[in-house]
């Protein structure tokens, strides 16, 4: 009876408090390595894919869960606010894609750069942004990360290597290659992840930028987050070839299961090592 009461009161406590209840304390700080197999194998294009075995720790597992659950909650809340017309204009949600944001952060540092399109709320959070900055910006308040002047599509955090937040489909890819150019120019030994959707994968400027990235061996990693829709149009109606990881032709590619945070972590680690040594790589999640 006492046990039941305690469990019920656990449920009534706020999320963060419930997490830190006594039973879980021993596992959240543990750093004993655990090896996990990714659910699906990787597929390589002109490259040998990485191993399916991923190293992790209980502490990392807990942060993965916490971060992804937080992101999911945030996006659902944003959806409600949008329907209540408290968020105006556009509101592109990332719920379902959280594993990409979280897995990527686990593999890189804040000196590496990330640039994405307008589905940027969770990436911003992953790069160190706060919920307050997020919601304030969405609702047009001066405490927002862009002081209310940007809106949903224009979150930035330069000090943690997050370069936005772009409204024009495909524009972020040459910009991302430019960041990689600057990293190479400055000899920083860091990389840039330029994220885009399957809709943007057909943009001409992607191929222009990829050509230059390959020509100059820029440490640019192109990441296609394939949710099978470009705005309202299904993938099969928009793209002749849905194998986005092969679109780079002479540029190596990697196909990754984007729903598996361990696969994402492994792929990003692998891509970073590749990009620093050999130049650009295209990946499709």
């Amino acid at each position, binding site marked *: 009876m006492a046990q039941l009461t305690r469990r019920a009161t656990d449920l009534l406590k706020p999320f963060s408090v419930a997490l830190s209840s006594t039973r879980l304390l021993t596992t959240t700080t543990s750093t004993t390595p655990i090896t996990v197999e990714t659910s699906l194998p990787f597929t390589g294009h002109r490259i040998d894919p990485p191993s399916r075995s991923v190293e992790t720790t209980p502490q990392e597992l807990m942060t993965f869960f916490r971060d992804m659950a937080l992101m999911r909650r945030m996006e659902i809340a944003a959806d409600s606010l949008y329907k209540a017309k408290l968020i105006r204009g556009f509101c592109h949600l990332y719920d379902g894609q959280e594993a990409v944001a979280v897995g990527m952060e686990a593999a890189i540092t804040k000196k590496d*750069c990330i640039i994405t399109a307008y589905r940027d709320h969770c990436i911003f959070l992953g790069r160190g942004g706060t919920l307050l900055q997020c919601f304030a910006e969405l609702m047009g308040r001066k405490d927002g*990360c862009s002081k209310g002047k*940007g809106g949903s599509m224009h979150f930035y955090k*330069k000090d943690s290597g997050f370069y936005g*937040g772009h409204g024009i489909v495909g524009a972020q890819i040459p910009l991302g*290659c430019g960041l990689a*150019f600057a990293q190479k120019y400055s000899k920083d030994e860091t990389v840039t992840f330029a994220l885009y959707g399957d809709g943007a994968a057909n943009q001409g*400027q992607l191929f222009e930028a990829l050509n*230059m990235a390959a020509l100059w061996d820029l440490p640019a990693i192109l990441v296609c987050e394939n949710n099978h829709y470009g705005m309202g149009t299904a993938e099969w109606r928009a793209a002749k070839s849905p194998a986005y990881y092969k679109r780079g032709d002479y540029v190596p590619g990697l196909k990754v299961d984007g729903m598996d945070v361990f696969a994402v972590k492994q792929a990003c680690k692998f891509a970073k090592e590749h990009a620093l040594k050999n130049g650009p790589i295209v990946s499709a999640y």
Partner: protein
Amino acid sequence: MLRIMRNKLDAPVFTSPFLKPAGLALRSYSSSAKQMTVREALNSALDEEMSADHNVFLMGEEVGEYQGAYKVSKGLLQKFGPERVVDTPITEAGFTGIGVGAAFYGLRPVVEFMTFNFAMQAIDHIINSAAKTNYMSAGNINVPIVFRGPNGAAAGVGAQHSQCYAAWYGSCPGLKVLIPYSSEDARGLLKAAIRDPDPVVFLENELLYGEAFPVSAEVLDSRFCIPIGKAKIEREGKHVTITAFSKMVGFSLKAAETLAKDGIDAEVINLRSIRPLDRPTINASVRKTNRLVTVEEGFPQHGVGAEICASIVEDSFGYLDSPVERIAGADVPMPYAANLERMALPQVEDIISLENILKDVDENQGAPTSNEDQTPMMPLGVESNLGDAFHETETWQLNGASGLQVWEEVFW
């Protein structure tokens, strides 16, 4: 972000352009004798800025091994190496985006377009990625980039290679738009543009590259810089104000010389900066002369002259003795044939033959005495007597008869 440098003797030559008293000479002294072409001026400015700041680099088509499509970047590859003078493929959208991304990170790119006609392929990056980012990020990311290249008509290059983009870029908040005329302008404005923390569109002119101008020792100093947003009064006068930029400054000065023989003293203003536009200088001049003629090479509708006219009407309407006159290129894609091209662009004769200058001032009110010379505007919606060449648009009667002549000759 101007770097302030003092010379060793601690006698300030140039501490900062903004501290320099307005009247002090940024004029070129003809007595100093050194002549410099605009091309050399641009080359030396690039050279000096790249030497002073390692973050500055040049990218564009043919800038490296070819020594520059117009030889503006001659010698730079040899001096600075291929990491800093980057030849790009013919992919404007791609390399402009890469330049803007590099500027996000903190480098200071100079992106060269072979002409600004090709920049239209990259205009999304110039406007949406570069110009607007500082505002959208509330200052988190500034974009210290310069977009430069020839703008406007060259000679016989046809419609797709001859457009002037001053008005297009001039309307966009977040951009600075500079447009030099002389070598002094070219040097000083390019240095200011490269040092500026915000995106600058730097509109050169292919036909001016080879023209030589006298430059003083001050201009040749590596610290020389012209403030952005200040126009220059090239020739002082009291009867009419003529505003111009780029090649049209030269034409306006020639027109002013001819007018002077007839006793008409024209004040010629070299705008130098389209955005921000130096409204105080233009207004002060019009308040002095009471008449205004705006000269530009570009298309008339929504042009720079239209903006200047609106500015004068807003701020100095009571001072005008006659309506503002706009001289612009013909409202037609640039024709190829030499005689047609000449008619599609303002010439010195067009600047001289203006009603604004030729009208007599009425004793009572300064109103014009006769309207006979004035060729009427075609009313909206009426088909021109030239048939249905451009049947949707009203035709513009520009430059008096020559504008009409262009329509006739171009389309028939």
